[in-house]
């Protein structure tokens, strides 16, 4: 069986996922916090995104 039969499916999978966004706020928050890791970083990123949102609303 050739693995190559799955090449179109792989392209399709990438295409499907390309419609999901990665927000600039998330990226900037991640690269601004290089010392933190794992779940703690996720918490920090969420907090920073919330603060940014609140500042924009205000």
């Amino acid at each position, binding site marked *: *069986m050739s*693995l190559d039969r799955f090449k179109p499916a792989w392209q399709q999978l990438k295409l499907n996922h390309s419609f999901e966004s990665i927000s600039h706020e998330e990226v900037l928050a*991640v690269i601004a916090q290089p010392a933190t890791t794992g779940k703690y970083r996720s918490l920090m990123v969420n907090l920073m995104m919330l603060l940014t949102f609140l500042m924009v609303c205000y």
Partner: protein
Amino acid sequence: MKSPSKTEFLKMIDMHKGIIHSLCSLYYQSMEDQKDVRQDIILQLWKAFPSFRAEAQSGTWLYRVALNTILNKKKQEARRPGHDSLTVIEQLSFSAVTQTDDDLQLLKQVIAQLPDLEKAIMVLHLEGYQNKEIAQMLNLSASNISTRMHRIKTRLKETFKSQPYVTR
């Protein structure tokens, strides 16, 4: 205000977000875990970004950094207690979708069965990389990649034999 390198980095992430999301979804089931590994990948890409301009193919650079980040994370998780229960959950969710004959679902099923390193090798093969290039990207020898590719094919043959409804 964003620096020029940050603007360039954001553009690169936008361009390759399909690859990043796809890799995260192949290795992790829950949205929370996917988000966690996505942030690890973004951080490692940012750290390696100075080397980005030196490489001709941005896709190659991204696959190398992203897959090595995932594989390192998986290795760390495997050393933690409680890892086995998560593996069982992943296998259960795999078995729940085995009866579809859609190629995309089939691809996900096939990849889900593979060990972490073989998943990476298969993805890079599907992306069109040669064994020698895959070896360089994953810091392995070309003969190691050839052996593992052979194992992947053998494993797939066995799977398709035991599940005749997915063969076409």
